[in-house]
């Protein structure tokens, strides 16, 4: 009986929302890229760079409101920088997206570690910058159970989770979104219509990378308060899986982010209450779930038709 109550424990559902925030942000960023036909395998590296950048800015400049905003902006910019290299190689030079993505993934992992070491140096105990203060929404946070789950977060979580709305709105309710989605299906058609193909792709690329970088900065700023090289520990990859799981649609991606975050929150809950299950098995769960989900969803999922395919205006097909 206690076991069942644990499953809907207010603190655990609260943790679910916190953990879901970076997953959702990164997955929405990846969605924007994939919708214009770019499969970004460097996402894990971009998340890492965003995390290192976010940490370093606050570590150097102190934790005030402007420096935190600066840290988030710097995280977004650093991921965009990698994204620009990715775009230049895959869109302009038409190199293979998968190999370029993997090379930039490695670049991101190396760069984030180097950045941290360069700024912080070698320390025996990793420095902490503390996490953002919680912002209890007056009134609403007093509601017995829901208040604890929904209205006692830091600002990052509120803003991060609500990013879903503008992304969905732009992609599915505006002419711009229609054009972006068309790019991912048939760049040839978009080009033939005289639409600014390159500008559409680059704007989605920059916006998507910004979201991925911001997702990275969430880990030091909001969740951990410190930095380590394995801080993202595969969350970037999970975000990539979420896009498939969500079948390239924002709302289903959000549902998936909540599901994965819930599974991750389980380990915090049962890591404390139960000694019967070794923690490593709980930490495996999201990845095992990702494979199971892939099996269930894959056949029905419809990826953007032009995903990973280079487009050359001068080719006949």
């Amino acid at each position, binding site marked *: 009986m206690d076991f069942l109550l644990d499953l809907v424990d207010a603190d655990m559902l609260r943790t679910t929302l916190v953990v879901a925030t970076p997953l959702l942000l990164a997955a929405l960023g990846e969605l924007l890229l994939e919708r214009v036909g770019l499969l970004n395998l460097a996402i894990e590296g971009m998340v890492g760079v965003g995390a290192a950048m976010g940490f370093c800015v606050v570590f150097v400049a102190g934790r005030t409101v402007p420096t935190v905003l600066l840290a988030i902006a710097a995280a977004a910019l650093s991921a965009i920088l990698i994204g620009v290299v990715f775009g230049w*190689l895959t869109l302009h*030079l038409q190199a293979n997206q*998968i*190999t370029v993505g*993997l090379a*930039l993934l*490695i670049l991101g992992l190396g760069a984030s*570690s180097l950045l941290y070491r360069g700024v912080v140096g070698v320390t025996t105990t990793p420095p902490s910058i503390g996490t953002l203060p919680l912002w209890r929404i007056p009134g609403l946070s007093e509601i017995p159970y829901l208040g604890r789950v929904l209205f006692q977060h830091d600002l990052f979580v509120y803003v991060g989770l609500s990013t879903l709305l503008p992304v969905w709105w732009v992609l599915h309710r505006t002419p711009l979104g229609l054009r972006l989605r068309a790019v991912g299906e048939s760049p040839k058609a978009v080009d033939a219509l005289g639409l600014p193909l390159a500008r559409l792709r680059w704007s989605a690329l920059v916006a998507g990378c910004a979201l991925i970088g911001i997702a990275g900065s969430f880990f030091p700023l909001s969740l951990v308060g410190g930095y380590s090289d394995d801080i993202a520990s595969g969350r970037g*990859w999970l975000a990539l899986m979420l896009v498939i799981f969500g079948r390239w649609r924002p709302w289903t991606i959000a549902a998936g982010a909540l599901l994965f975050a819930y599974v991750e929150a389980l380990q915090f809950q049962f890591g404390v209450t139960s000694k019967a299950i070794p923690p*490593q098995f709980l930490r495996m769960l999201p990845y095992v779930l990702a494979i199971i989900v892939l099996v269930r969803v894959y056949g029905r999922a419809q990826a953007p038709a032009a995903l990973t395919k280079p487009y050359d205006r001068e080719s006949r097909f």
Partner: protein
Amino acid sequence: MLGLVVALVVNALLLAALGANPVTAYSTILSAALGSVAGLAQTLNRTTPLLLGASAVAFAMRAGYVNLGIDGQIYAGAILATGVAFLLDGWPAVVLLPVVLLAGLVGGGLLASIPAWLRATRGINELFVTVMLNFVALFLAEYLATGPWTDPVAGEAITVPISAAADLPRLLPGGGHAGILLALPVAVGLSLWLARTRSGFEFRAAGSNPLAAGFGGVRLVRIGVVALVVAGALGGLAGAIEVTGVHSRLLTGLTPNFGYMAVLIAVLARRSPVATIPVAFAFAVLIVGADSLQRSVGLPPSAVLLFQAVVVVSILAFETARGRRLVARLVQATRRSPGRRRAGGVA
């Protein structure tokens, strides 16, 4: 070639930005990795898993499959190898060592059979499954190294040592083990098999044009399973070699991203297993050299990832058609400009 030059320049700038003199840094790297027998031993030790992993990845790529799971397969192979070594404790080295290495092959192959099976029966892209399994295998290794097999004295994720009879023979002083003698024939053998045998031809056909190969009677599903399982088994062998050659036990720091490096090496070697030999060696030089830079300049070990990525990105950029055109234009511009200046001088 030009990509390599650009990469060296960019890396030199990076080193300079980090406060190191690029010339001394490069010479430190070379002398640390190649300048002494002990250094060479370390370099060959690092070459072994990179070479096995990269030739495995290149092999699978030839048939059109991307195996991103070498890291996980290294852990799977290491887990099974360690387990078997514990189980057969006391057996003589002549029997024990081959059995332990075989266990590594089986472990990696078993893990890779999951993506292979999912690809064969459901058409699921092996790329994602292999990455997810990396984490599963890592956490399984961590569980074993902190739980049932843990060394209570060590206080970290590390198991008790395996029997000394299962250690790989030493080749060089300074800890150089015989793993490289296993890795080299594997890389050469895979290339020969691809180039010289009928099944190797079918394999390449399936990779370059699956539709045509399918109509020609090539059994594509079987080739996919073979490609992934063999690649996984070689990854597992690399794990078993790491256990028996380097650490004599299972631990969680077994692979510092060897798997991702292996993919980069395979790409640079243009998917030819035998061509991964020099590239893997060069990557190993970078790793060992960067370790010594860490002591002299204070670079973190993961900085080497950045350098490798810069090399790969530069070479990828200059390999594309437009990249080559860009280079041609640059070369032309530099050739023309002195002429123009001379013309201006006359006028």
